[in-house]
């Protein structure tokens, strides 16, 4: 493999951009969550720190850092300390295979007396364009369970333990319908590579030979069912209300992170929001056309890239807002209902959708 410094610099730039955005998701989302809940519940919400309480997250972060870091006497020290890292790892890494903008050509230019990008070269706004992209996301998501299980077990606390067992049972159950719903999309796209899936959704199609719609999977007659299954399973997978049995503060104190304090707790908090952001990015990529701008063909230039990246961020923000919106609208389900819903409703629906997509492909409608 020839060693190309330009490649490495480009990769580092991409990683820096994505990590920067991802890490700033948590403070922004905390603010959105608190102000949003206040809006929905008709109360002012945090409004003391900065204009409209914008710096509330900074104050929270400061508070987290200042708090005492407690390790309970009965806890398993190593695992107790490592668990937040286990939880954070998948949330940070899964985003690497998601494309976040239109590829564009970097023109040849002189930087520091060296010619870079000889003859122009393509810039692909994705950290790692692996051929099994979607599987990598699911693989990393399945690692996420360990953060919760390890935290719950190592805390040596029955509420933590119950929270951990509930959360992992829930995540495993819904991972199935999540994966099967994504499988429909893969079947339609004929590729596991997320960039292919996005390209396949750019352009438009005619619904009933009359209405031109963007060719997003969510509008496709074969895939809207998968979209519903995927979104609901995504809520369960990220442990958000109405499926937040991992925490269920009214029943389990705080679930698996009952014993955690200070920055370790903050890490769990960050992991939760980052997992949410990754899941939203995945929903957008698989069903909402990724960085595609409807009814507009972006040019393969830097401006086109910026526009498409902005479109991607806008879509992800919208999905994130829906996450908040639903959290403060719906009450928590009963646990047995949740499991029944997962296994008896969404799993069959996802399987049914695969059959539908296969039929569409066989009839050459896709």
């Amino acid at each position, binding site marked *: *493999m020839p060693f190309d410094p330009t490649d490495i610099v480009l990769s580092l730039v991409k990683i820096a951009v994505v990590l920067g955005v991802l890490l700033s998701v948590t403070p922004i989302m905390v603010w959105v969550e608190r102000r949003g809940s206040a809006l929905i519940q008709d109360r002012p919400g945090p409004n003391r720190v900065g204009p409209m309480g914008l710096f509330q997250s900074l104050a929270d972060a400061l508070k987290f850092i200042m708090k005492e870091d407690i390790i309970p006497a009965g806890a*398993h020290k190593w*695992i107790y300390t490592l668990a937040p890292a286990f939880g954070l790892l998948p949330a940070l890494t899964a985003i690497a295979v998601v494309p976040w903008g239109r590829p564009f050509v970097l023109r040849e230019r002189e930087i520091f007396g060296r010619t870079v990008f000889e003859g122009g070269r393509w810039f692909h706004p994705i950290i790692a364009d*692996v*051929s099994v992209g979607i599987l990598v996301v699911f693989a990393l998501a*399945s690692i996420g369970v*360990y953060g919760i299980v390890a935290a719950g*077990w190592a805390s040596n606390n029955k509420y933590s333990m119950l929270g951990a*067992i509930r959360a*992992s049972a829930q995540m495993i159950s819904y991972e199935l319908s999540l994966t099967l719903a994504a499988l429909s999309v893969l079947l339609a796209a004929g590729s596991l590579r997320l960039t292919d899936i996005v390209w396949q959704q750019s352009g438009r199609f005619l619904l009933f030979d009359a209405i031109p719609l963007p060719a997003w999977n969510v509008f496709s007659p074969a895939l809207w069912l998968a979209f519903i299954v995927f979104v609901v399973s995504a809520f369960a997978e990220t442990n958000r209300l109405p499926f937040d049995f991992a925490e269920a503060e009214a029943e389990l104190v705080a679930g698996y992170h009952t014993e955690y304090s200070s920055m370790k707790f903050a890490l769990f908090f960050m992991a939760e929001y980052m997992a949410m952001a990754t899941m939203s990015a995945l929903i957008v990529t698989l069903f909402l056309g990724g960085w595609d701008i409807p009814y507009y063909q972006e040019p393969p230039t830097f401006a086109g890239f910026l526009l498409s990246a902005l479109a991607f961020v806008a879509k992800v923000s919208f999905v994130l807002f829906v996450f908040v919106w639903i959290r403060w609208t719906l009450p928590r389900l009963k646990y047995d209902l949740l499991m029944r819903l997962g296994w008896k409703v969404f799993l069959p629906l996802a399987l049914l959708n695969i059959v539908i997509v296969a039929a569409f492909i066989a009839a050459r409608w896709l």
Partner: protein
Amino acid sequence: MLEYAVFFFFATIAVVFALVVILHRNPVVGALSLVASLFSLAVMYVLLDAPFLAALQVIIYAGAIMVLFLFVIMLLNLQHAPEPTTRPIQQFLGYFTSAAFAAAMVYYLSKYALMTAMPESRFTSSARMIGERLFETYIFPFEMVSILLLAAIVGALLLSGRPVGHRARIGEEMK
């Protein structure tokens, strides 16, 4: 060079955590170490041009099998169970034979196995190629595996479920 660095780093991780699995008294620690070991094996699969199987390795082993192990350990509360005693002679024989086996294998492999660089692969194994093989050449084993999995589900349910009538008995006791 980078490949060698990656290989030896993850090989060390795999071996060290594998040792933790068999030496540590606490099964929860053992299970978590096994996850780490299997994860580094997935990295090896990527080095061997099998990204699809690497992803499957993490999804199936880390995501499903090991979670099942952890579940069973936690549900049975085995982490506090005292480790059964073993006869010293059994311990000694076990360690001795496996060490001798490892030494012999390593000796002969380093002597006779190919130590020249591997050929650049003639295929980039994609999910598509594996799928085509599975549904053409290997369709019969594939169907057999699906039947086996079904049988395993039924068997696991039957074995781990409470005995028949258990609920009815509890109901009567409640009355």
